[in-house]
């Protein structure tokens, strides 16, 4: 059974159609990649899945439950976490606090409990910290837990963002260009980490331009062109699909 089903989704901005007739599914336990040239509508699609943008037509279902129309925080609560193209850490906080924000959806202490430091809230706070530390450890940044988020390098920020997404305890993680801005070594580590995540039972949907990474780790690829999927399949098939080669290198004979 598919974890996420995107069905015939459309979205336009003013007169410009960004995504149209987009349909694909993500199966549980998969690493699925969404690729395509600039302006193909990948990020728009991501934003629709995570609720930041509304859909015009079509449906997005997560675990057979319709999620388009829900607010972003509701979608996060349902089990979909995401990262952003430019790592959007909360720069006024420390690294661990950033990751602790991820645990927000899984905790409940209210304003009164927090003001008064009730025992229940204290216990919960400890649990949040432990969970956050665990995620930081998972991405290999536990030693930097108390550092200010602003003091991190770009690559480290990406990892913290990943840990923060994982801290929401998601079933599906959406990664928006996780390798952009990373050097070769960091990209390699990222690939290993994504596979490790899958090993831990998290399904991954990623948008990525680094083809080496995509081809290395993904089980399945969807190619988007002008807002519409033009090919789907495993990496080897995609690399040799003439239409894909055409959209990437610009030989338009194959596109009619």
């Amino acid at each position, binding site marked *: 059974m598919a974890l996420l089903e995107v069905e015939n989704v459309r979205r336009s901005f*003013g007169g410009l159609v960004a995504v149209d007739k987009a349909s694909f599914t993500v199966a549980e336990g998969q690493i699925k990649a969404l690729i395509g040239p600039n302006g193909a509508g990948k990020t728009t699609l991501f934003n629709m899945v995570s609720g*930041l943008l*509304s859909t015009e037509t079509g449906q997005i279902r997560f675990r057979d439950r319709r999620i388009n129309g829900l*607010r*972003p925080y509701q979608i996060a609560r349902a089990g979909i976490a995401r990262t952003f193209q430019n790592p959007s850490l909360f720069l006024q906080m420390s690294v661990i606090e950033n990751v602790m924000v991820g645990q927000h959806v899984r905790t409940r202490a209210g304003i009164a409990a927090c003001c008064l430091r009730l025992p229940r809230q204290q216990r919960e706070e400890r649990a949040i910290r432990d969970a956050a530390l665990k995620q930081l450890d998972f991405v290999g940044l536990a030693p930097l837990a108390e550092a200010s988020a602003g003091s991190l390098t770009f690559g480290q920020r990406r990892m913290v963002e990943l840990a923060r997404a994982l801290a929401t305890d998601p079933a599906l993680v959406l990664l928006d260009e996780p390798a952009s801005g990373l050097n070769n070594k960091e990209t390699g580590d990222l690939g290993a980490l994504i596979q490790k995540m899958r090993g831990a039972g998290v399904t991954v949907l990623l948008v990525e331009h680094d083809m080496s990474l995509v081809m290395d780790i993904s089980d399945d690829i969807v190619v988007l062109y002008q807002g519409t999927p033009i090919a789907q399949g495993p990496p080897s098939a995609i690399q040799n699909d003439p239409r894909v080669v055409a959209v990437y290198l610009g030989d338009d004979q194959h596109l009619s």
Partner: protein
Amino acid sequence: MGSGDLILQYLLSGITKGSIYAIVAIGFNLIFSATGVLNFAQGEFVMLGGMIAVTLSFYVPLPVAITGAVILVALIGCLLEVLFFRRLRRHSIMHMVIITIGLSIVIQEIALHLWDEKVRSLPYFTGKEISSVAVFGATISPQVLWVLGTVAVVFVLLHAFLRYSLQGRAMRACSSNPEAAMLSGINIANLRTLSFGLSAGIGALAGCVISPITMTQYEMGGPLAIKGFAAAILGGLGNPMGAVAGGLLVGVLEAFSVSKLPAAYNDVTAFAVLLLVLFVRPQGLFGSPTGDGVREF
């Protein structure tokens, strides 16, 4: 006086107030469109215009005094932009709002210590305090016609400037897409300064033409700014036609609310309508709904 005449008279008194709000709102709009700053100190430009003109009118004929005041205040506007906003481009809206509020307070205090707490006014441009023009049985002060005329002239000139002159077009280009404007060789920093100056000048002109009606005092800026602001929002920020319409609407609304409600709650009505518009239709009555992303999601 018949009820029809009364309604007309209420309408005219609404227009009197409305024309004052409208002319303040036009200035607001200009800065907002060109720079994205909502200038809470706009009312102070109005006050300064009136004050300087009154002072100058002791030494030179009225038209010269007004011209001098407008030029002087326009220069002050440019100076403020260069001193306080040029460096602040990357600051948040919250910071901008706070700075303009700070400026408004400081200018007001400077005016208090420069002049004093007394009320001044320019003479009526035509006629006297007691003259009025009859309109179908109702009456209106000739100075209101001056204000309305000024609103019309400023509106037309501004419109022509923005649409047909090179600098005006450049200003529109800046507000439409600053990056592309820069790439077309437009020095957008200077253009923003220009828009501040222009807006301050319009404010000063407003301060001069309304002075015979409202009189000029160091404190007058605040209430005027808030009403002008309300007018601009009501009409849809960034829409000069909307500013004029919004101003007249607020004025007429106040006038007719007096006819039914205690006048003590006059402003309450005006602000309640403003809040309602903000909450229900923040792009204003005449703005396009696809506006500027006022609301989240």
